[in-house]
């Protein structure tokens, strides 16, 4: 930065000094441990209110079912059937919104050619000759069955929309059939609405605005320091502090587990649900970020961060050139002074119920990989960004008018690629570990299916598998 810029900055600083001091005080207040305890207490209070609400709805449903049971019993004279219905509805952990339309016991078609039971995909190494048999007309039935099951419920399309909640959390957007249950519940909802839109939302927008200013200011100041160990240390502390303040804008309550595995260098991979993931992870550890250069809101943050530390931001045109990307990545990772680089190998946002295929690019670099699992608590807000339905601003608006952002982050032990292992197998191994820790479904489907249609090769694999079972002259 030139001398003129420095002088300009100093002048501006002096003019805005009281303003800056005020923000500084606010930041200190909001990021101290007291504030964190306050937010945790708030979240616990909310949980109690939700349980109350769920209890009211459940008892109302029970009363309704008892009257239906009486009616059915009289009308059909078929007690057995109505009892079965009632029992289904009153199963333990009574779900108000049922999450599955059918029980999927049978074969599921997978993109890698296996048609395997849901639990495991076992590669078939047996000799095929012994299993081949003649074609019979009923051979189509398996495909038909699998196809119909896919139409009723499939593993993939449900990952790109918000997860359905099992109990209501007093937000209209999560309740499909709002029925009038009781005055008290409606009043609670109205109070909740008022609090969220007229108290929480404006204060959060203000905090967000201030936090971005603060971040820009701090990173600009850090940018003045000379390159070296002190600058890095200052950047680490300052960036974590700034992101903590930013996380107040969403009332974030984040619990970090297994902090002994925290990455200090190398590559850190995590499952992707929302752009806010970066902020969530950054509240505990500083990272180098990698991604496309954006304009707008994200662009401001990108430029601010780039002043103070080394990140990798691409132009759109460079993304196509995978070799350049890989080279820059390798250079960064090989430098022990650089921060660990945060990568989301899924490549797109998934709705936090599953982990989809990891792209192999970051697993080819050959460095140690630190997996991190992030799981959002859907009772407080749905963190998933459905980019085909909502723009970034709409998404932020919805997040800021929700109750809170509660999530768990698990740091997992570092993993190395084994000697004979391919990058794809390594990626799948890491993915399985993350899925297991976060309680997510491990899928081998590509997240890009959000926007693209299935590839022809996958169907060809299915055809190949079937033809192997046919005996031909």
């Amino acid at each position, binding site marked *: 930065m030139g001398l003129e810029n420095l002088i300009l900055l100093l002048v501006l600083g002096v003019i805005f000094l009281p303003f800056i001091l005020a923000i500084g005080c606010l930041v200190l207040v909001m990021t101290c441990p007291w504030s964190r305890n306050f937010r945790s207490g708030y979240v616990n209070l909310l949980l109690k209110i939700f349980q109350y609400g769920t209890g009211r709805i459940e008892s109302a449903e029970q009363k309704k079912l008892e009257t239906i049971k009486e009616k059915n019993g009289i009308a059909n004279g078929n007690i057995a059937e109505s009892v079965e219905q009632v029992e289904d509805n009153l199963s333990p952990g009574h779900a108000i919104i049922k999450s599955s339309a059918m029980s999927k016991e049978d074969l599921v078609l997978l993109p890698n050619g296996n048609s395997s039971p849901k639990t495991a995909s076992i590669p078939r190494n047996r000799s095929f000759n012994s299993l081949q048999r003649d074609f019979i007309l009923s051979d189509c039935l398996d495909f038909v069955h699998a196809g119909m099951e896919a139409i009723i419920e499939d593993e993939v399309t449900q990952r790109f929309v918000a997860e359905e909640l099992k109990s209501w959390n007093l937000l209209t957007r999560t309740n*499909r059939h709002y029925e009038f249950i009781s005055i008290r519940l409606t009043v609670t909802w109205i109070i909740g609405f008022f609090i969220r839109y007229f108290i929480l939302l404006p204060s959060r927008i203000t905090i967000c605005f201030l936090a971005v200013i603060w971040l820009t200011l701090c990173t600009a100041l850090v940018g003045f320091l000379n390159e070296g160990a002190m600058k890095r240390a200052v950047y680490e502390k300052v960036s974590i502090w700034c992101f903590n303040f930013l996380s107040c804008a969403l009332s974030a309550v984040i619990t970090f587990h297994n902090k002994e595995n925290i990455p200090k260098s190398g590559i850190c991979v995590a499952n992707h649900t929302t752009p806010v993931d970066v902020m969530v992870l950054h509240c505990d550890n500083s990272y180098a970020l990698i991604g496309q250069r954006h304009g707008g809101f994200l662009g401001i943050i990108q430029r601010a961060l780039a002043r103070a530390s080394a990140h990798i931001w691409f132009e759109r045109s460079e993304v196509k050139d995978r070799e350049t990307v890989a080279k820059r990545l390798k250079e960064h990772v090989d430098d022990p002074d650089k921060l660990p680089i945060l990568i989301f190998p899924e490549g797109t946002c998934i709705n936090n119920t599953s982990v989809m295929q990891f792209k192999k690019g970051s697993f080819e670099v050959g460095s140690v990989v630190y997996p991190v699992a992030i799981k959002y608590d859907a009772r407080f807000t749905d963190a998933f960004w459905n980019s085909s339905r909502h723009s970034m601003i709409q998404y932020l608006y919805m997040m800021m008018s929700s109750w809170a952002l509660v999530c768990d982050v698990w740091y997992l032990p570092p993993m190395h690629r084994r000697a004979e292992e391919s990058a794809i197998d390594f990626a799948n191994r890491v993915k399985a570990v993350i899925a297991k820790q976060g309680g997510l479904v491990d899928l081998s489907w590509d997240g890009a299916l959000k926007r693209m249609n299935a590839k022809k090769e996958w169907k060809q694999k299915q055809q190949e598998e079937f033809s192997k079972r046919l005996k031909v002259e």
Partner: protein
Amino acid sequence: MGNHSSLLLREDEIATIQQETGFTPNQIERLYSRFTSLDKGDNGFLCREDFHRIPELAINPLGDRIVNAFFCESGSEDQLNFRQFMKVLAHFRPVKKDKENKLNSREGKLRFAFKMYDTDNDEQISKDELLGVLQMMVGDNISEEQLVSIAERTIVEADKDGDQMISFQEFCAALERTDVEQKMSIRFLN
């Protein structure tokens, strides 16, 4: 977030569908929710594109035949409403002894399977139709001559009246020992 459809199902519609198909109201609502989530344009009906967007169906070798069976029911080339959707799904309800419906009876299920092969809907499976479906199932992995011989053999085995084609009765007879009730049933949760 959540269900974006503003078209809720009316009571009388649910009753009609229950009457026709035998699904319970809960199942109907659950499947309606699926129908609306497939209906990306919020049109109130599904088109073929909506089906092809399901990856597990798109990679199914018989995916096109299955989608065809839905639209054959609807009569329209590209519009499927919820009632027609349910009538096709009804074929896959498990058979209950005392509550048999025309759609999910053994014959109803066999009719659906027959439609997979009978491409031109003339109630007969010709050698060419059988060959076409075989090609769908095996792709390029088996040569055409071998497929032709498989098709010919299959027809010879099933054809009772010697017209070189498989009628619906012959089809049912050929599948006599197959547990159609089990293979063509899906356990819908309540």
